[in-house]
């Protein structure tokens, strides 16, 4: 039976190409999946897996998510209570934090306790945003990273962000990257995971990670 994967649409950018990346990953790995971009909470309730994307500023994304009636409550229900596999991408991952500190202090979902703060590289010549391709330093084994080479000689992920999630519990950090100091690249706790980078823009690594997510049984 085909699994239903919902990519939550709350007005944060183009989700059509993200959906295409999920479709491609599903097809390439022989996983029967229906990928739906939706703002319909009933559809999210039926979903086997949930993806929360997000581009732009933290506060704008939070506002956008709150503006979809019942969506935050629905996510609490299906992700927190029903424990369905969840992936946050970029600001969609940052929203998992307790607070975002971009421009103003904004409450996050609080699923991964911590703050989203400006990256301050220890080398003045390094540019912000942290924009481009970087490698991952795995902090733990995880199904989402199966078959993905990490470390300095590993595959690259595409990042574009100025703020980063700093979890309170170090064990919530699944992978780090480096930009004048360690920067959180992935978080995971139970059925909740997030990538600061864009798997849907990360070519080889991205398609592998998406396929892993589609197979993941937390």
């Amino acid at each position, binding site marked *: 039976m085909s699994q239903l994967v919902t990519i939550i649409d709350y007005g944060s950018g*183009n989700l059509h190409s993200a959906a295409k990346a999920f479709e491609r990953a599903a097809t390439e790995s022989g996983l029967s999946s229906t990928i739906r971009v939706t703002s319909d909470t009933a559809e999210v309730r039926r979903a086997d897996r949930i993806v929360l994307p997000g*581009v732009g500023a933290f506060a704008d994304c939070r506002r956008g998510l709150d503006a979809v009636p019942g969506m935050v409550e629905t996510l609490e229900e299906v992700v927190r209570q029903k424990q369905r596999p969840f992936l946050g991408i970029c600001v969609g991952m940052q929203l998992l934090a307790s607070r975002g500190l971009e421009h103003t202090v904004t409450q996050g979902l609080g699923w991964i306790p911590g703050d989203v703060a400006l990256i301050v590289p220890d080398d003045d010549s390094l540019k*912000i*945003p942290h*924009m481009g391709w970087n490698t991952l*330093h795995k902090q733990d084994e995880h199904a989402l990273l199966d078959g993905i080479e990490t470390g300095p000689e590993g595959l690259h992920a595409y990042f574009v962000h100025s703020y980063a999630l700093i979890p309170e519990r170090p064990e919530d950090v699944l992978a780090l990257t*480096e930009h004048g100091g360690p920067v959180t690249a992935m978080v995971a706790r139970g059925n909740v995971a997030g990538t600061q980078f*864009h798997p849907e823009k*990360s070519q080889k690594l991205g398609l592998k990670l998406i396929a892993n997510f589609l197979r993941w049984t937390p």
Partner: protein
Amino acid sequence: MTLKTRIIPCLDVKDGRVVKGVKFLDLVDAGDPVEAAKAYDAAGADELCFLDITASHEDRGILFDVVTRTAEACFMPLTVGGGVRKVEDIRALLLAGADKVSINTAAVTNRGFVKEAAEKFGGQCVVVAIDAKQVSPGRWEIFTHGGRNATGLEAVAFAREVVSLGAGELLVTSMDRDGTKSGYDLGLTERIADAVSVPVIASGGVGDLDDLVAGVRDGHASAVLAASIFHFGTYTIQQAKEHMAAAGLAMRLD
């Protein structure tokens, strides 16, 4: 682990076809942009850039179609520019599948537009394209409309200003070098890259692979943009990456 230097092939698009102008004149048709984008995706390009070079004058609907079809086929970052003047233009391009939008003339004529765009969509997707010509030793000024119109604005001060307004990246093109194959204007690139906190893409004038190396090593650019050396098969993306890696630059080779 370190952030890698990006190689960005740029497809100048007119009427839905790839062209490459020599100093933005004498256009030569060089193929279908979606097919070219797929080829660059497969070849390991780090990003792609579409510049709709005649967008100021002509119907742009065809560009949205090109962007949509590219975004559906290529899982890599895509920047689109040309004729971006209003918030609605940016929204339409982002919704079509662009990841970043480059603003050129409108950033010159209406600085508030850069701020509005960055506030609305986030600085990470706002690239300001700076077209500059050297007017005297150590001084470069901004030109618009494909290099036809002088503005009298000094390039480094303009770069600082648009970054303070929220631009997340600068695409710096030397109008003196564009199409000449004589290398980037390293003085211009370096001055701007050193003056701003955001990444700078060097553009205009690449003739060989050493020019790409120089853009980063001497121009302090975070990314290098080129068109004809790739479009006409003079070098492959892989050759460029290997050459730059051999010169000691951090490149993504996977």
